[in-house]
C-alpha cells in the first residue's frame, strides 16, 4: 500500500520488480504532481476508519497465490463464490424483511410483496415476541406490533401464514432467544397445511451469541441458551434436513457500531463456537454445518464490504477443513444473506437513502450474497410504508436485471485493491480469533465483555469522526438543508394490542388445559435433564401453549441472563 511518501522506509530490503516499478512511478510521476497539488486529505479512510492507500499495484498482492487464495468459483477456498456460475444460473433471493401490527396486516404485506416479484419471505417479530412475552403481559404495553408482527401463540402463526404454502416458499424468521418456540409453531403450521418436513426450507436466525454481544434481546443465561440452539441443530438435521436452523449474524454487530473487520471476525468466531458446541454434542460436522447460514451487513464503504464477504468465504472454508476436519464441500461453503445498513439511513433528506441502499446492495451482490434485503428510505423515521417497501424491492430488481453486474462471476476478483483488502480482512479476523481462543472461546470472551467493549469503542470513535467532519454524511454534517416535513409514514394502530389479547383469550378458552400443562411439564423435565427440548416444545405449541408460557417454563429451569456491567 502506498499512502504517505514521508513514511516510506529509507533503507530498502530486497525489492521485487513490482515494488521497483511502483517506486519509479512515485518518484517520476507522482511526486511532481503532489508538489503542485496536494491531495484533498492527509488520510483517506473507510467507514471503519481504516486507512486506504492511494494506489494498489501488483506489489500489494505479492503474497496472494491465485490457486491457493483466489482460485475458481465453486471451488475451495470459495473466495470467488460458492457457485461456479455465480448469478448466471440463479439470481440471489430477494427477501424483504417485513412485519408489523397484527398477523393479518403482515400476511397482507407478504402477499403484496410476493405479487411484486419478491422471491422469499422474512418475518420481523415485535419486541414482546422477541423477548418471549405474550401480548397481554404488562411488559408488552406500548410494544405490541410496533417493530414487527405480534405472535403469542399458534393461533397468530396460523393467520400469519394463511394462504402461503410453506412447502414451496422459503421463509426466514428473525427470532433468537425464543427461536425454538417459533420454529415449533412454524413446523406445526406447515404440518397443518399438509407439508412434508423433508421439503421445508427456510431459515431461523437463532443466533443467540450476537444477542449478548450486540442486539441484547436475550432471555436465559448464555450456556442454556446455547443448548437450545444445539437442540434445534439436532432436531432439524434429523427431521427438517433442508431447513437452516441458524443464521449467524454480523448484521447486528455492525449496527451496534463495530467496524467491518469486527463484524467479520466476531461473526465467524460465533460460527466456530456453534460448530464446536454441535460437535461437542456428538453431531457430525458434515451433517449439520452445511445448514449453517450467515447474515452480514452492507454498509457504505463499497470495497471494504466486498472484501469482507470474499474474506468470509475464504476463512470459513479453511477453518472448516483445518480446524474441524470437514470433508464435504458443502460444509466449507459459506452461504449468506445481506441487509443494507439500517444505521446508515438518515432522517434528514430521507429520499437520499434510496441511493445509499442501492450502492450498499450493489456491494452485497458483487460480494456474492445468496439473498438480499434492501432497506426502505423511510426506516430512520418509522417502519416502511407500502410505497417505500416497493422502491426497496425495485432497487434490487434494477441491479439484477438492468446493470449487467450479474452477468459474470466475481467481477472484482483480481483487482489489486480488492484482493489486497480481502487478505487484510482475513489476517485481521484471524488475529481476533487468536485473541478469543486465548480467552477460552466466544462464550468466555462474551462473559469477559470483550466483543462488547470492542464494539462500543468503535461506535464512539465513529461518532467522534462524524462530529469532526472526517466522515461525511450527506444531509447530516454536509449539504444540510432546512426541511419542511410531511413525508407520510406508517403508523401502527394502537388497537393492535387489544386485538391480539382477544385472539389470545379465545385460543386459551378453546384449548385443552390439561394437554397444555402436561406438555409444559414435559418440557421442563427435558430442559432440566439436558434432553432435546424440541419434541416437547412442539407438543406444547400444538396444544396452543403460548409463547410466554413456554418461555416461562424454560425461565423456571434456566433462570434469566443478567448483563454484567462493563
Amino acid at each position, binding site marked *: 500500500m502506498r499512502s504517505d511518501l514521508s513514511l516510506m522506509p529509507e533503507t530498502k530490503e530486497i525489492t521485487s520488480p513490482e515494488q521497483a516499478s511502483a517506486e519509479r512511478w512515485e518518484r517520476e510521476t507522482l511526486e511532481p504532481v503532489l508538489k503542485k497539488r496536494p491531495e484533498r486529505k492527509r488520510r483517506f479512510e473507510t467507514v471503519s476508519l481504516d486507512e486506504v492507500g492511494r494506489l494498489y499495484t501488483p506489489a500489494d498482492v505479492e503474497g496472494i497465490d491465485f490457486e491457493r487464495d483466489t482460485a475458481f468459483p465453486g471451488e475451495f477456498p470459495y473466495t470467488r463464490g460458492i457457485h461456479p456460475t455465480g448469478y448466471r444460473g440463479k439470481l440471489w433471493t430477494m427477501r424483504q424483511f417485513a412485519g408489523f401490527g397484527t398477523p393479518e396486516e403482515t400476511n397482507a404485506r407478504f402477499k403484496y410483496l410476493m405479487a411484486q416479484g419478491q422471491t422469499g419471505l422474512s418475518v420481523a417479530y415485535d*419486541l414482546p415476541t422477541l423477548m418471549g412475552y405474550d401480548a397481554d403481559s404488562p411488559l408488552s404495553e406500548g*410494544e405490541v406490533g410496533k417493530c414487527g408482527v405480534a405472535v403469542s401463540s399458534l393461533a397468530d402463526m396460523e393467520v400469519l401464514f394463511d394462504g402461503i404454502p410453506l412447502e414451496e416458499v422459503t421463509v426466514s424468521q428473525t427470532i433468537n432467544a425464543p427461536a425454538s418456540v417459533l420454529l415449533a409453531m412454524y413446523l406445526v403450521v406447515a404440518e397443518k397445511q399438509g407439508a412434508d418436513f423433508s421439503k421445508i426450507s427456510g431459515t431461523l436466525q437463532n443466533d443467540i451469541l450476537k*444477542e449478548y454481544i450486540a*442486539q441484547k434481546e436475550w432471555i436465559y443465561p448464555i450456556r442454556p441458551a446455547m443448548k437450545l440452539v444445539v437442540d434445534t441443530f439436532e432436531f432439524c438435521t434429523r427431521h427438517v434436513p433442508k431447513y437452516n436452523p441458524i443464521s449467524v449474524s454480523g448484521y447486528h454487530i455492525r449496527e451496534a457500531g463495530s467496524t467491518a473487520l469486527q463484524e467479520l471476525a466476531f461473526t465467524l468466531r460465533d460460527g466456530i463456537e456453534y460448530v464446536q458446541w454441535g460437535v461437542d454434542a456428538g453431531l457430525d460436522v458434515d451433517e449439520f454445518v452445511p445448514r449453517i447460514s450467515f447474515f452480514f451487513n452492507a454498509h457504505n464503504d463499497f470495497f471494504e464490504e466486498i472484501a469482507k464477504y470474499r474474506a468470509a468465504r475464504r476463512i470459513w472454508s479453511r477453518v472448516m477443513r483445518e480446524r474441524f476436519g470437514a470433508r464435504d464441500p458443502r460444509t466449507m461453503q459459506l452461504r449468506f444473506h445481506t441487509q443494507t445498513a439500517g444505521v446508515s439511513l438518515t432522517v*434528514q433528506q430521507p429520499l437520499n437513502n434510496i441511493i445509499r441502499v442501492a450502492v450498499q446492495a450493489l456491494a452485497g451482490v458483487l460480494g456474492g450474497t445468496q439473498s438480499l434485503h434492501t432497506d426502505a428510505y423511510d426506516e430512520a423515521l*418509522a417502519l416502511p410504508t407500502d410505497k417505500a417497501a416497493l422502491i426497496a424491492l425495485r432497487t434490487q430488481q434494477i441491479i439484477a436485471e438492468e446493470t449487467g453486474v450479474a452477468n459474470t462471476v466475481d467481477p472484482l476478483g483480481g483487482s489489486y485493491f480488492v484482493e489486497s483488502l480481502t487478505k487484510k480482512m482475513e489476517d485481521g479476523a484471524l488475529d481476533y480469533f487468536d485473541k478469543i481462543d486465548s480467552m477460552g472461546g466466544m462464550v468466555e470472551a462474551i462473559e469477559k465483555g470483550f466483543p462488547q467493549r470492542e464494539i*462500543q469503542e468503535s461506535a*464512539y470513535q465513529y461518532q467522534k469522526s462524524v*462530529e469532526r467532519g472526517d466522515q461525511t454524511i450527506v444531509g447530516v454534517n454536509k449539504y444540510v438543508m432546512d426541511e419542511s*416535513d410531511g413525508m407520510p409514514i406508517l403508523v401502527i394502530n394502537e388497537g393492535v394490542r387489544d386485538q391480539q389479547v382477544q385472539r389470545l383469550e379465545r385460543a386459551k378458552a378453546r384449548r385443552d388445559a390439561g394437554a397444555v400443562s402436561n406438555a409444559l411439564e414435559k418440557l421442563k423435565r427435558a430442559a432440566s435433564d439436558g434432553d432435546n427440548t424440541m419434541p416437547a416444545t412442539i407438543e406444547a405449541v400444538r396444544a396452543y401453549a403460548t409463547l410466554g408460557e413456554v418461555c416461562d417454563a424454560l425461565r423456571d429451569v434456566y433462570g434469566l441472563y443478567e448483563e454484567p456491567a462493563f
Partner: protein
Amino acid sequence: MAERKIRVLVAKPGLDGHDRGAKVIARALRDAGMEVIYTGLRQTPEMIAAAALQEDVDAVGVSILSGAHNTLCPRIVQLLRERGMDDCLVLVGGIIPQEDITRLKEQGVSEVFLPGTSTEDIVRFLRERVGARA
C-alpha cells in the same frame, strides 16, 4: 458555591436492547465533564423515576427506538413530577415521528433528539438549560 457537575441519568426503557445510542451519549456526556449514571436495559418508568430521585439528577436522557415512546415517555415525566422532581429535564433520543415530538413536548418532554444529532448539541443543550437554573 463550588460548581456542581451536571448529573444525568441515561435510561433505556421498554423491551428494546439496541443500546448503541445510549452508550455513545453516556460516554460523550462523561467526556464533557458530567456525572452520568446508565440504568442498563429494560427499565420500567417506575425504575427510571426511582433511580433519578435516588441519584438526584438534573436530567434524564431516555433512549427509545421501538415506537413505544408515546406510552413510556409521558409516564416517566409524570412519575418524576409526582416525586417532586419538577425541574428534572427529560430528553428523548431515538426514532420519533414528527407529530409525536409535538405531543411529547406538550406532555413535559424538554427536547427530542433525532438520529444524526451531534453529541455536542446535546452537551450544549444540557449546559444551557441546567446551567440557567443553577
